[in-house]
């Protein structure tokens, strides 16, 4: 209940997003014609532009809102407005993030809607997939922006742990992917590996964000300490879980070798 109320308020406060989305939708319709295209090439260009604009709009808005909503209020002291209400810390955090996410996704829908209705690609399932994937990708983008903004605004050296952890995790996933691609021989589903490589750190980011606000509340530095330690732990667990298929392959090749 509280999450819904807080999310609704977050959406109602940012009416300009709808205006921006409307302009983007119009730009998506008009741009191919401004480039001198017409007929089928223009229609195809509109379709491609619709996908690109949706991705850009949702991604940018998710990053901006993730970085601004709670980290901004923590830095300015306005988070107290929510925390002196009879609602849980989780409701404040997830209500606001949910509101921002819904806004980004709904804005993205407005951006592609003219292309879906008027465009040449009447493949509604395809459009649903585009919008759905963008919406799902917006979740880690928003959480990452939130975590990095908290990390930056707290002005503590824990930021080094955050950046090192995230950098190492990215490097580790790439290395693992290369090795799995070379060694898999049909034994590992790389799509599932990539999905897990995205979902696991997203969960780590979510846990870190929850602990940061729950244990820090208005104390940004204390919260950041919790965030940094939990994120490092979460990324380490994610890396260990992801390395399981590769270790299994190594073990079986040793057995067979």
């Amino acid at each position, binding site marked *: 209940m509280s999450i819904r109320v807080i999310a609704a308020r977050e959406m109602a*406060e940012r009416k300009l997003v709808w205006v921006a989305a409307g302009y983007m939708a119009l730009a998506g319709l008009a741009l191919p014609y401004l480039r001198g295209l017409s007929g089928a090439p223009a229609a195809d260009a509109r379709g491609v532009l619709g996908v690109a604009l949706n991705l850009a709009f949702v991604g940018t808005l998710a990053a901006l809102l993730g970085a601004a909503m709670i980290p901004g209020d923590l830095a300015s002291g306005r988070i107290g407005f929510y925390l002196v209400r009879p609602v849980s810390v989780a409701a404040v955090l997830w209500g606001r993030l949910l509101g921002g996410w819904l806004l980004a996704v709904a804005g993205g829908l407005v951006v592609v809607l003219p292309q879906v209705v008027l465009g040449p690609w009447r493949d509604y399932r395809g459009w649903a997939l585009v919008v759905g994937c963008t919406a799902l990708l917006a979740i880690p983008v928003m959480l990452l922006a939130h975590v990095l903004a908290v990390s930056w605004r707290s002005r503590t050296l824990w930021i080094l742990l955050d950046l090192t952890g995230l950098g190492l995790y990215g490097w580790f996933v790439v290395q693992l992917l290369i090795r799995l691609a070379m060694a898999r021989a049909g034994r590992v589903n790389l799509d599932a590996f990539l999905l897990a490589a995205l979902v696991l750190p997203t969960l780590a980011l979510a846990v870190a964000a929850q602990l940061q606000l729950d244990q820090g509340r208005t104390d940004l*530095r204390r919260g950041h300490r919790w965030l940094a330690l939990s994120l490092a732990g979460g990324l380490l667990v994610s890396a260990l879980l992801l390395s399981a298929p590769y270790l299994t392959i190594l073990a079986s090749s040793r057995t067979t070798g």
Partner: protein
Amino acid sequence: MTSIPVVQCAGLTMAYGRRPALAGVSLEVPAGAVYALLGRNGSGKSTLVRALLGLARPRAGEARLFGEDVWRHRARAMARVGVVPETPDLPPAMSAAQASAFCGRLAPAWDGAGVAARLARLQVDPAMPVARLSRGQQTQVALALALGGRPELLVLDDPTLGLDPVARQDLYRELLDELAERGSTVFITTHDLAGIEGLADRVGILHQGRLLLDEPLEALKARFRQVRWATSGPEDLAALGPEALAALAPVAITRDAFGVQALVPGFTAEGLAAAGLAEASVTGASLEEIFMGLVNGEVQA
């Protein structure tokens, strides 16, 4: 049966990094009392309020509201508390009416009509975004919202900061009306010593993170006296001697062109005679004089 104090701090210790902010503060506020916490800037008042509202975790000790550890049970406690923060923290794009509707959906009991009536009385436009209201009006909106939940406890953190005299008077009038109507408990931190004197029934003085004093206002004013005597020069004060100073036991001594003034707690005529100051004039001390003497006073031998 003893009733549980509404506010309870026991050995409350807080720090920002290595910098201590509160050192073992203990105090209690019974139901229905108006407790004024006084202190200079940076004395730890707002830190104590943050701990009381479950917004910051104590390093040691505990803060309790209605008998419950507020850090653990913040959300439950906040259903019974109204808060006016030191710096207005309403979302800038929100209007007072929207803020009232929002808070009403989160609070278990909400007096929306009362908030609207209060805003009208305070001449605040309920449709104006908060960012376009003056600082004083933002505080008035915060007060209206704090009272909207019909709180059992009202916590005000330096609410008169930056208010003009009229807005300050309006705020106190609203508080008095609330007290007369509902008898809520009030915990207020302030610099406005003159304003709070007619409202508080108990005061605490916080200085450099330590609670110097915590007692009923009337008892405090009855205990302290200003003792004044004329001197011809600094040598007269030096001539007073350590025994006389010990007999007088002042907490602060100030000198001006006309003489010496000492703030004396636990005043007795015998002490005055023992100090050789039987001819000195003795007057009552205002809360401001007591506060200034305690936090700013210097006793010179």
